[in-house]
């Protein structure tokens, strides 16, 4: 019975609800953004048209002035820089946490409890968790007061808050868990006898890590990387709040343009950003075949 249904209309009907959700909430809005990115605008209104002017504005004199970077390129370099730093840090920390949970904690019950504890920060909103850093890192904050009290510094350390440092710190704090979950999931599937077999073959702890655990966690690493990279690339809240509205990011550029009602150029920027992120994701997928394990 199941075999005959497979060729009929039933499977399509079963897939239809999700397909519809995707169509309505992802494909249609994206299509709108692409369409609007070719429209024109002035101070008062946006008008249907077909012009590539918005894209020309995004990359205004960018090629001509190389090697000096134009604003757009500088913004991308800054955003990519954050993405890279946050990616490396969340990967290292996330991998270590996942490894600890999956391999060092023997009892399944304690594993689950520790894993659930990791989710507790998600009980409050992102923004709350972000601004809770401010009393800690500010000029008169806890860290500076402690450092001055200990006599390590005479003047408050300025770069703790509203700096690249605080932005990176907050990103890492917020998104490491997105790295932990998929890596932990991959690690749980690693057959423990493989570790024993490696030890039997004379592999040291690091050799086991590098030759067995890392290759077999690749899928999780790739999925976690996609989460973290896409979030950081599109972020404007964290960069805004923790960078004291002084640090440029692609997301913030788009937000600013929207606040001036310049929707077409914001849309053009969004399309360029989307293309950049997709390139990164494709590059990742070329290195790791995710489908193999899903």
């Amino acid at each position, binding site marked *: 019975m199941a075999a005959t249904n497979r060729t009929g209309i039933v499977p399509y009907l079963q897939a239809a609800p999700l397909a519809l959700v995707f169509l309505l909430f992802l494909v249609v809005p994206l299509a709108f953004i692409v369409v609007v990115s070719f429209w024109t605008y002035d101070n008062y209104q946006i008008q249907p048209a077909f012009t590539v002017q918005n894209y020309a504005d995004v990359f205004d004199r960018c090629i001509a002035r190389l090697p000096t970077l134009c604003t757009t390129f500088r913004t991308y370099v800054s955003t990519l820089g954050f993405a890279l730093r946050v990616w490396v840090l969340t990967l290292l920390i996330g991998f270590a946490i996942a490894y600890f949970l999956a391999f060092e904690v023997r009892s399944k019950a304690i594993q689950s409890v520790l894993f659930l504890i990791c989710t507790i920060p998600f009980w409050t909103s992102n923004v709350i968790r972000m601004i809770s850093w401010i009393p800690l890192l500010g000029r008169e904050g806890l860290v500076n007061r402690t450092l001055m009290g200990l006599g390590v510094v005479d003047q408050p350390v300025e770069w703790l808050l509203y700096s690249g440092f605080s932005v990176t710190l907050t990103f890492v704090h917020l998104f490491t868990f997105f790295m932990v979950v998929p890596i932990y999931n991959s690690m749980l599937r690693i*057959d423990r*006898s493989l570790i024993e*077999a490696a*030890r*039997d073959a*004379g*592999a040291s702890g690091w050799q086991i890590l590098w*030759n067995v655990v890392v*290759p077999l966690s690749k899928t999780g690493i790739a999925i976690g990387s996609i989460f973290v990279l896409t979030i950081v690339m599109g972020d404007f809240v964290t960069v805004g709040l923790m960078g004291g509205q002084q640090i440029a990011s692609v997301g913030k550029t788009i937000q600013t343009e929207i606040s001036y009602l310049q929707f077409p150029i914001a849309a053009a920027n969004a399309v360029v950003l989307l293309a950049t992120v997709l390139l990164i994701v494709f590059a990742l997928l070329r290195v790791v075949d995710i489908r193999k394990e899903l």
Partner: protein
Amino acid sequence: MAAGDLELVKLTKRYGGTTAVEAIDLRVPAGTYCCFLGPSGCGKSSTMRMIAGHEIASEGDIILGAQNITDLAPAQRGTAMMFQSYALFPHLTVLDNVAFSLKMKGISKEERYKKARALMDLVDLGRFETRMPAQLSGGQQQRVALARALVTDPGILLLDEPLSALDPFLRLRVRTELKRLQRELGISFLHVTHGQDEAMALADLVVIMKDGRIEQAGSPQDVFHRPATGFVARFMGGHNVLHLDGRPVSVRADRVRIGEGGEDARSLSGEVRGVEYGGATVTLVVHAADAGEITAVIPEEQFYAGPAELGETRSVHWSRRDEYVLQAA
């Protein structure tokens, strides 16, 4: 690699409050095919894992050749283990799997592939070099695991139920193959199994374990002819364990005959409870009042010379010389 006799001295393994292996002593001469036999939970796997170094012995010593290896790391012992599920690395090709331990030692690619290829030829795997483990059949995976274990030139190869994942037909072929390899390499194989036929067919030395202790260790003939305990007799099969003259006794089922015996024979009679045709032999079960059920395995033509029917009362007999007194359990 220093091959030599393996000796276990008062070897003990405890997990919390339970004792898995209790002070066992055993000597396995170099170049022996040794089978650890017993029901699940008897401690045979724990013993092997302690020898391999994947479990730490709670007490006692493991001596290989002239060296006490009790506390050495697995790779320093001169042992290699073949895992029950084979534990092949799914992300590596067959060749890289076999060469894995050489890579860990930092041996150059060229040299380790050369060595790995030699081993793969030994187990007839040459054609599969570039395949991934998932693309191989169970029997092929088993051979990869074997080659991977042998690539370190171990003094003793430890095999944890190596045939249990194979289908019955393949099991027989691989069994022959294992014995051939052991002869060719001249090293000891330590093979854990719960199949007595496997142990009988392969072993020079059979070690039968129960509840963390060795019940009997000896050649297959010894163990089959003269089981030390009722447990061994029952586990090996083909034995009647009876209570005669106030002591436990074993009689091989194929030594029991139908009818009254002569002077030096013991005869018992009872109701025939089962007749089972098995080709060359017929298995007869007689319920004798005091002694209990007696199984007789009788050659076909002898049986049909005077066949027995279910429900009849018949006598059976055997030579008293075929009775072996067992240690009280």
